[in-house]
């Protein structure tokens, strides 16, 4: 009897604690999801509002309060920026500039990325595997160079580019961007190479490869994720760069970031057009970030956090 009683009381107790546990778990889950939804809204809302603004007619944008969902959405601004508008006086000048800005950004970012990744990988390999005098000082030097505020060296750079007739040219910007983004490439690739076991190359070296062929045949195929991360990061940083583009270009080589800020002063009233420029200008880095998100987060964590 007593055993039965205690058995049932234990069962009851177990049941109620299980139930409590379940409600607690359910409550926890609900809170988590509520929080996640709020977080997603906070992350997306500002950008989504810019997208909505870009397709809202001017009248709806200046309503008080604004129409959150446009009644008559329009793609006219996108058409105007990409194909040129058929009517309207202010837009065509902006259009020509806009496409040119996109083209300049694309050319500068692609070439910068290629040069940075090739020269940076070479340097990183030498630093990771070969005897280099003052290796540590070199690494610290590149890190400091990367951290230096650009503004401190802008005047000498201006005089230098002027001397070589490179102001307002794509090659001028490419040279500057390469100089500023090389340190990141070297640091990330260096720490990446250190994670690759050296025994693989040693085997290749014994098989008669030299260091260069070992690098190309053995090390590089294993460095895919690192290379993807630094390439994406270099492209993104070049595309988003503003300060140097503002100072070193005036008409021919203006990049998209400069063109977009000029929309705001010249067409101050038409926030719709600014929003459209902002959305299109953000697309290349966004696509890149979303495509390679895993590599970017991993690669940059490695580069930023692992000292050596």
């Amino acid at each position, binding site marked *: 009897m007593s055993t039965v009683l205690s058995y049932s009381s234990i069962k009851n107790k177990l049941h109620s604690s299980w139930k409590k546990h379940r409600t607690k778990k359910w409550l926890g889950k609900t809170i988590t999801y509520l929080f996640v939804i709020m977080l997603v809204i906070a992350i997306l809302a500002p950008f989504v509002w810019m997208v909505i603004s870009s397709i809202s007619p001017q009248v709806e944008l200046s309503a008080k309060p604004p129409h959150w969902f446009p009644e008559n959405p329009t793609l006219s601004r996108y058409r105007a920026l990409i194909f040129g508008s058929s009517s309207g006086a202010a837009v065509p000048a902006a259009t020509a500039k806009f496409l040119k800005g996109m083209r300049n950004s694309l050319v500068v970012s692609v070439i910068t990325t290629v040069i940075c990744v090739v020269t940076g990988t*070479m340097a990183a390999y030498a630093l990771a595997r070969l005897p280099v005098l003052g290796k540590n000082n070199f690494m610290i030097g590149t890190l400091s160079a990367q951290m230096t505020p650009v503004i401190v060296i802008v005047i000498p750079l201006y005089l230098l580019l002027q001397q070589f007739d490179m102001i307002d040219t794509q090659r001028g910007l490419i040279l500057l961007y390469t100089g500023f983004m090389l340190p990141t490439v070297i640091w990330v690739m260096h720490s990446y190479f250190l994670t690759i076991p050296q025994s693989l190359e040693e085997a290749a070296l014994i098989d008669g490869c030299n260091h260069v062929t070992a690098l190309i045949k053995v090390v590089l195929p294993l460095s895919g994720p690192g290379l993807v991360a630094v390439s994406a990061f270099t492209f993104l940083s070049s595309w988003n760069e503003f300060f140097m583009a503002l100072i070193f270009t005036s008409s021919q080589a203006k990049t998209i970031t400069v063109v977009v800020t000029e929309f705001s002063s010249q067409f101050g009233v038409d926030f719709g057009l600014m929003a459209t420029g902002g959305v299109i200008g953000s697309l290349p880095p966004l696509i890149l970030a979303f495509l390679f998100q895993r590599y970017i987060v991993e690669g940059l964590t490695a580069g930023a*956090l692992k000292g050596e």
Partner: protein
Amino acid sequence: MALAQKKSRKNREEQKLAAFLLAPAILIMAVVTVYPLLRSLWISMLEWDLTKPFSGHPFIGFQNYLAILKDPVFWQAAKVTAIFVIGAVSLEIISGLLIALLLNKNFVGRNLVRTLSLLPWAIPPVVNGIMWKWILNPSYGALNGILYSLGLIDEYIIWLGNPILSLLMVILADAWKETPFIMLLFLAALQTIPGELYEAAEVDGANWFKKFWNITLPLIKPTMFVTLSLRTIWALKSFDLIYTLTAGGPSNGTNVIGFYTYLKTFVSLDLGKGSASAYLMTIVVMIVVLLYQKALNQKGTSA
């Protein structure tokens, strides 16, 4: 003997190869960063005012530095920078860590949330500035629209109208862009902590706070230091956001040191004082860089 000779020949060859591999990177960085850094140190000691073209540019020692240090606008900019950096960086680190702690569990759509977190980080800073300028617009802005629709305000607020409020808005815009990526870094760090540590602590009867204080915090400390110093360095150099959102105004309320230096150099066209101001800024940045390197080394020895 022969072996030693062979070894030293191999060593020499490797050194030659290293020099060859390093040469392009060294050359580019020497031209783009090292040489300009030295030349600008020299310029900072010259009197070189483009608005006075006939005065030449004589050497005046540290007078540019003294002039900058006597300029009340410089100290105003230093104060604004300090408030901006401390405000933005602590807001970003604390909220980034809190969000990471809350996301550090399994739930449906976790990868999606992580992907979306890259959005603010990936868009160009100038687009961020333009976007917030539009959201904060006093007559047509979405922020006023929402607060008005919800009945929280009776009339539209001029968000960028007074120095204190606009500095707060600049911090908000910066935090929107930077926090999600910091959150991802913390999340990566949290995931390296083995679950057994928490289980053992639970057996010992530790509560949430004790677990956080005794396990989580010590293990993510290196990440915290590195993120803190890196964010501080970038925040000290802020320019794009200020340029597009407030242009330093109103009444210098958001005029950070980077923007002040820009105005001295490219608007007042005083190259000497501009360089001196830039060097003062660089000194502060380099102090933080040294702290960062310390943090890196500490991480290296503890790991």
